[in-house]
């Protein structure tokens, strides 16, 4: 187990393996998301209450799922770095932060655009939007800490610790925001009390989620490869890579 970890923890090996994988994954993700977008826009049924506005769900919900699982993934990478001191895991965690921030930003934007035709307001202090806002703030804090510590070279451990603290806190934050929302619950239309989604709605949603996952990993691989190149720029193999192609 450990041997396998350390082997995969070699930046060079990861770079070589990912060279083969990055383009197929990127192409596949673009294909899945693009194709599924057509499905969602043209063929998915309109909701009996929201009408065509429900089509926003297909890009909003996967982004929300990815923003959250991205944070968990980042915290896991950080834990691997802190426990086994594998530098690649730290770079992996670092590569998640901007991606996760952009996705949670996307969730908020599409959420508020979705809110206007359905709730009648651009923004509702709904439990899920609020906790996504906190998630965005956590990602931004992460990026800020990286920026501040990068020069000193101690960014990895501090960010790792912060990521894990955040992971412990996310359920608490989610729960407390839920509580807060029920305390202040406005009399408005609620999205959560829908009848079960029919197959022709959740199937494209599921495929879209898969597409987003593929996309997440392709961008993550791009970013982590850049990180490897920067950190290992003085090694022979990076120089020969830069010179060759």
């Amino acid at each position, binding site marked *: 187990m450990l041997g396998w970890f350390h082997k995969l923890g070699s930046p060079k090996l990861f770079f070589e393996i990912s060279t083969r994988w990055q383009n197929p994954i990127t192409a596949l993700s673009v294909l899945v998301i693009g194709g599924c977008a057509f499905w969602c*826009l043209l063929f998915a049924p309109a909701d009996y209450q929201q009408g*065509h506005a429900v*089509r*926003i769900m297909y890009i909003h919900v996967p982004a929300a799922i990815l923003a959250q699982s991205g944070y968990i993934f980042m915290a896991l990478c950080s834990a691997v770095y802190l426990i086994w001191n594998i530098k690649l895991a730290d770079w992996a965690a670092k590569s998640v932060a901007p991606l996760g921030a*952009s996705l949670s930003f*996307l969730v908020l934007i599409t959420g508020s655009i979705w809110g206007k*035709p359905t709730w009648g307001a651009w923004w509702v202090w709904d439990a899920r939007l609020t906790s996504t806002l906190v998630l965005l703030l956590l990602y931004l804090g992460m990026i800020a800490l990286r920026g501040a510590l990068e020069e000193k070279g101690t960014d990895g451990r501090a960010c790792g610790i912060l990521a894990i603290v955040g992971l412990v806190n996310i359920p608490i934050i989610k729960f407390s925001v839920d509580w807060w929302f029920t305390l202040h619950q406005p009399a408005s239309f609620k999205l959560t009390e829908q009848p079960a989604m029919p197959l022709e709605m959740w199937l494209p949603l599921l495929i879209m989620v898969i597409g987003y996952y593929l996309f997440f990993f392709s961008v993550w691989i791009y970013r982590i490869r850049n990180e490897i190149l920067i950190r290992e720029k003085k090694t022979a193999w990076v120089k020969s890579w*830069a*010179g060759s192609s």
Partner: protein
Amino acid sequence: MGKELGGFQLRFDNIESFLWMDGVGLFVWSSYFITLAVLTLNLLIPYLKKKRIKKEIREASEN
């Protein structure tokens, strides 16, 4: 409404109704375009950065 296309039910009669979407077209389309923009940027930024890094490494090793 709409015609069948390979087993799928097409939900719009014509381009106009597809764009209009019963009045919510602006919301749906803008959110799709914003998503497109954010996702494209996510791919583009690391791609451009990689090109820059590569150039830097090459120049550094030539000097």
